[in-house]
C-alpha cells in the first residue's frame, strides 16, 4: 500500500496543497481511506494527523470505514425532494435493512445520500454502481436492488 500511496502523492505534485486531491485518489483506489494510507500521507507530505483527520471527516466524499461492493446513492436535492426522494431512502432502508450512511453486514451494499448532482429534470434520482437511474419510484427502487443482487 505504501508504494501505491507514494505514487498517488507523486502524481499530484507531491505538495501539501494537493492534500485534498491525494485523499480523493486514495478514496478512489481503496473505496475508503485506510489508516495506514493516511499515516503514509502524513509522513510523506509532512502534515499532521490532526489535519488529515479534519479533512477526512469534513468532506463527505470520504469514508473512514470500508464500504460495500454496490454503492447506492439517493439524490436529496430540492427538485428530487419535492418529487418524493425521502420516500426512496425509506424504501431502500427497509429493503437493505440499514440506515443511510451504513453498509450491509455482508459488505455488499452501502446506502448513501447526496445533496444534488445536477440531474434535476430526472428526479427523483438514484445512482447505483455509478449509473444514473432517473424517475425512480419506491417499487422501481426495490426492483433495482433485486436486480443487483441477482447479478452477483
Amino acid at each position, binding site marked *: 500500500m505504501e508504494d501505491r500511496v507514494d505514487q498517488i502523492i507523486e502524481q499530484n505534485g507531491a505538495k501539501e496543497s494537493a492534500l485534498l486531491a491525494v485523499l480523493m485518489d486514495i478514496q478512489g483506489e481503496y473505496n475508503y481511506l485506510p489508516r495506514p494510507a493516511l499515516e503514509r500521507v502524513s509522513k510523506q507530505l509532512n502534515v*499532521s494527523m490532526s489535519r488529515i*483527520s479534519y479533512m477526512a471527516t469534513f468532506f463527505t466524499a470520504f469514508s473512514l470505514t470500508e464500504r460495500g461492493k454496490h454503492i447506492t446513492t439517493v439524490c436529496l436535492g430540492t427538485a428530487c425532494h419535492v418529487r418524493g426522494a425521502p420516500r426512496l431512502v425509506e424504501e431502500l432502508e427497509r429493503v437493505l435493512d440499514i440506515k443511510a450512511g451504513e453498509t450491509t453486514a455482508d459488505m455488499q451494499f452501502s446506502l448513501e445520500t447526496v445533496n444534488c448532482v445536477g440531474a434535476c429534470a430526472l428526479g427523483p434520482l438514484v445512482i447505483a454502481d455509478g449509473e444514473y437511474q432517473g424517475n425512480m419510484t419506491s417499487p422501481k427502487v426495490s426492483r433495482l436492488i433485486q436486480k443487483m443482487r441477482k447479478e452477483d
Partner: protein
Amino acid sequence: MIEFTIDGKTVQAERGESLLKIANAQGFRIPHLCYHEVVQAYGACRLCLVEVTQTSHGRKRTKLTTSCNFPALEGIEVVTQSERIGRNRRMIIELLLARAPKAKRLQELAAEYGVGKVRFAESDAECILCGLCVQICRDVVGVDALGFTGRGVNKDARPPFGEPSKECIACGACVEACPVDCIKMEETHTMRTIVRWKRTLPMRVCEECGYSFAPTFQLMHFAKKTGMSLDDFRVCRDCR
C-alpha cells in the same frame, strides 16, 4: 498610529490591531470566549459583536461584526452596546447554554447579560468549539495533537480520529486555555492524565526533592525544541 472612536471616545492604536484587544485595554467591557492573545483571532463564538460604521465610496455603512478579528482603521466609529448587539448576544449565550448547560462561565454570562430561561432542549455537550485548545496545541506548543473533526453540530475538537491521543505531551496548556473548563487534568504522584483526550503520561520525579514536576514527554518536547538534552531536566525548577 491611527485614531478612531469607541462609544464616542477617541482612541489611538496601531493600524490593524484587534478592536477587541484595544477596547478591553481601554476599559470597555466586551465579552468573549474564543479569543486569546497568544493565538490568531478565530471569530467563532460571536460573543464579541460590535457595530462598526465606516465610510467608503462616500457612503457611511454600519455593520455588525466580531471585534476580535476586525482591524483598527482610521476614522471608524465603534459602538459596543446597542439594542442590536444585546439582542444577538443574548441569543448566542442562550444557544451556547443550551449546548453546554453545565458550563459555569456560560451561566455567569447568562446572568450578566440577562438571559433567562433557555428555550431549547438541552444537549449534554461540554465543548463549545471555540478552537482554543486546537490552536494553542498546534501554534503555541507545536505538538498538533488536537484538531477539529466533522461539520456543523457534529463538529468536535479532539485528537485525530477521536482516538486516545498519541502525540499529546500532557503539558496542560489546553486545560488552562479552555474557557468552559471542560478539559480536566488529574494527577497522582507519578502520573498525569488529561482526561478528555484519554492521555496518561508518567511524570518526571525530581532527583532532589522527590516531587513530580512535569510529564516526561513534555520535557522531551522541550529538549527537542531547544536542542538541550533530557539530562538537563533531572531536577525541578525549585531545586535548581
